[in-house]
């Protein structure tokens, strides 16, 4: 590891420790790390947007290639900035209307197809009881039905309907439990990666200092 790499890795290790210090209590070191992340992310995104979108889609197209019709969406984009003025903020509604119209028009049929109809088709497929998959499919149908009954509020949850609604709550609890379990797994993964990073860093640091003091070499 070169000196420059060691400096950068040491900064990363230090910032990791700053962030972990929040577990004890809030402190200025944590605040520094937090603000640094927010600042760096915002700055990085601004640059990426400018060079990845604004330059090729506005400057290059209009001024270099002479495609004047690109100035229409560019003007709509610039109009969005009027939201900062109380007097002229109404102008931004033209851009918003245009954007929302397209977004809603594109997304409604696709969302209905991919988030409702395809799942409905899969749930209402004929059940083959002779296989294990068929039994799972049957359970899916029962659980979907019971969960839907739980959200049916026009009738009191009593009798067979109440039993179904109670089963629905159970199904929801299992789903939340699975979500929580996966969340714990995800968070522990982040911790494990950081701990391994710190461990590897300490090994590198030990070797670096050894080389430095024994041979006076900066690799």
């Amino acid at each position, binding site marked *: 590891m070169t000196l420059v790499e060691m400096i950068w890795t040491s900064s990363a290790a230090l910032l990791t420790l700053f962030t972990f210090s929040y577990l004890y209590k809030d402190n200025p070191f944590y605040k520094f790390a937090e603000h640094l992340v927010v600042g760096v992310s915002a700055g*990085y995104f601004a640059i990426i947007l400018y060079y*990845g979108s604004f330059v090729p889609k506005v400057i290059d197209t209009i001024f270099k290639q002479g495609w004047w019709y690109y100035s229409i969406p560019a003007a709509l984009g610039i109009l969005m900035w009027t939201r900062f003025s109380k007097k002229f903020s109404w102008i931004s509604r033209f851009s918003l209307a245009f954007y929302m119209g397209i977004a809603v028009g594109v997304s409604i049929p696709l969302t209905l197809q*991919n988030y409702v109809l395809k799942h409905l088709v899969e749930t209402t497929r004929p059940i083959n009881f002779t296989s294990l998959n068929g039994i799972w499919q049957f359970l899916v149908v029962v659980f979907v039905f019971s969960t839907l009954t739980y959200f049916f509020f026009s009738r009191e949850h009593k009798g067979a309907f109440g039993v179904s609604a109670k089963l629905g709550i159970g199904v929801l609890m299992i*789903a939340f439990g699975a979500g929580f379990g*996966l*969340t714990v797994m*995800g968070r522990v*993964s*982040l911790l494990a990666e950081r701990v*391994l990073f710190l461990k590897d860093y300490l090994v590198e640091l030990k070797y670096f200092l050894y080389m430095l003091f024994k041979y006076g070499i900066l690799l």
Partner: protein
Amino acid sequence: MGFYDRLMSLDRRWIYLFVAIAVVLPILLEEFGIPISIPPYVTPEAKSVYTFVHKLQPDDVLFLAIDYDPMAMAELHPVARAILRQCFKKDVRVIISALSQNGPGMAEQLISQTAKEYNKVNGIDYVYLGYKPYPGIVIMGMSQNFKLFFPKDYYGNPLESLPMMRKIRSIQDTKGVIDVAAGMVADYWINDGAGRYNYPLALAVTGVMAADYYPFLNSGQIFGLVSGMKGAAEYEYLAEKDGYMKKEDFIANRSMPIQTFAHVVVILFIVIGNIGYFMSKRKKV
């Protein structure tokens, strides 16, 4: 205050301390020559993603979407790296995009490092397109024609100048898409990409997201699902068995002992917390 009441009002920092001990313990054991190896149970949903890439032939083209930023790097980098290694080892060509706003630099680092290991060249063996905002629209655009949103690749080369892109017009000319995602981008791939243009799609998502995508697996809208670091460990395990990578290259599998120890502590605290809750409730009655 009784024992159970004290248990219920336990300072959260004790829990952090126990988790920290559980996390450090496997590392210390390894240092003292007692390595803990936990072979992962391979789930069918992770295996189907692996098998899909395994069955690709040399010169086939895969679209790999790296849609996460450094905050999800710990969970998703291992699987993205394993997929790239598998593709490069098989001479499968890869087109890569990065539609997460803070991810393009990180993705470039991953791609260039892995490409260097296998002597792969940008434009011939892989193409890195980079980032464009509004993922839904970009995905729709790439499904029709890459040049609509990416007339140039990440490095500024015009797409038509890249030998690999001469016969490839859109994602529909590839064998399929594997989206390694943290956040909403996975939904855009399901809805605006595969849902509209009917190409095979698999997801590798963070642990937090995984539960939300199982219904899509069941309905056949995605053909595989790799869940968080555990899924990545499964993928690495399969890749190592078939010789795509070495055990020394494992990233996710290194974390598995730590993960297991931490999970045991969390489970213990959940059990203790519940005992405390019910016992203190019973006492009050």
